[in-house]
């Protein structure tokens, strides 16, 4: 393993995967035991409602038959991206602020889009799409096919990285101002960062919770909509 550097996000991803897996296994054991004729209680109610909501959304975009195959994938990436985004609240660096992670997610989405095109247009249709509407546009169509990976991955990465850089800048600012105020009061040297607990909670709520939720929603909706673009309308209606 000499010369191989393991990025620190790898350990955070492993930790997060273990935590999500434990939570999901425990929840599925509890769901197996409940009475289907009664209302789900406690933590099970939001879980059941969330699964039903996401499954309904997938069905709206790709139709009933495809939703049975695509639904579990969409639910998995939405849970994974959301917890990756808000894990920075607990002092760990979020895995989605690492470009490798978002690039992998974007490539997965891209492969699924190509698979859908193969399924509904055939191999000939897939190649014919490159010279539509005119053969002159071949280079444009080639570029357009691959910029999707770039734009989807950089959208998630850019938002999360900008959030963490902003929070770092604000913490540095608070430390400097704390030192200055303590200096005015007669203390010398660095002091406890007492301004940060006053100023940062609201910004954490925006940059971590709200941005995390919105970016998850955008990524998942884009994945579903782009995959659904190639599904014929009569399959969606059923």
């Amino acid at each position, binding site marked *: 393993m000499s010369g191989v550097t393991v990025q620190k996000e790898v350990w955070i991803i492993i930790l997060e995967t273990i935590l999500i897996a434990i939570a999901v296994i425990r929840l599925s054991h509890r769901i197996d035991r409940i009475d289907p004729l009664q209302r789900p209680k406690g933590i099970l109610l939001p879980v059941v409602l969330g699964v039903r909501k996401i499954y309904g959304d997938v069905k*709206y*975009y790709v139709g009933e038959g495809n939703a049975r195959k695509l639904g579990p994938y969409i639910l998995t990436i939405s849970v994974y991206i959301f917890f990756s985004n808000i894990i920075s609240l607990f002092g760990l660096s979020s895995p989605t602020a690492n470009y490798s992670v978002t690039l992998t997610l974007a490539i997965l989405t891209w492969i699924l889009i190509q698979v859908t095109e193969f399924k509904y247009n055939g191999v000939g249709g897939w190649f014919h799409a490159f010279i539509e509407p005119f053969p002159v546009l071949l280079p444009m169509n080639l570029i357009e096919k691959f910029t999707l990976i770039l734009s989807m991955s*950089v*959208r998630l990465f*850019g938002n999360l990285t*900008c959030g963490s850089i902003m929070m770092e800048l604000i913490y540095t600012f608070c430390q400097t101002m704390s030192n200055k105020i303590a200096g005015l009061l007669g203390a010398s040297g660095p002091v406890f960062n007492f301004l940060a607990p006053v100023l940062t909670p609201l910004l954490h709520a925006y940059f971590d919770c709200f941005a995390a939720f919105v970016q998850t*929603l*955008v990524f998942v909706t*884009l994945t579903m*909509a782009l995959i659904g673009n190639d599904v014929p309308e009569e399959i969606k209606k059923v």
Partner: protein
Amino acid sequence: MDINRGLIAIGAGIAVTTGFMTGLGEALTAAHACDAIGKNPEAEGKIRSTMILGIALAETCAIYGLLTAILLMFVY
């Protein structure tokens, strides 16, 4: 050497200004989507998905600006 770092920083700052008009455009998209939902509340799902697609396409421009800025800052 120092003036080169300064010029790179100015270039990165100019690259990031692509976000200026993008923000305006996304706000217009959201405002018109609100109008459309007010006029036609039962088509909310369709309007929302079209709005998110449009916003994502408009955002691509700002993302390329950000990418250029990041490349300028860290590659040179």
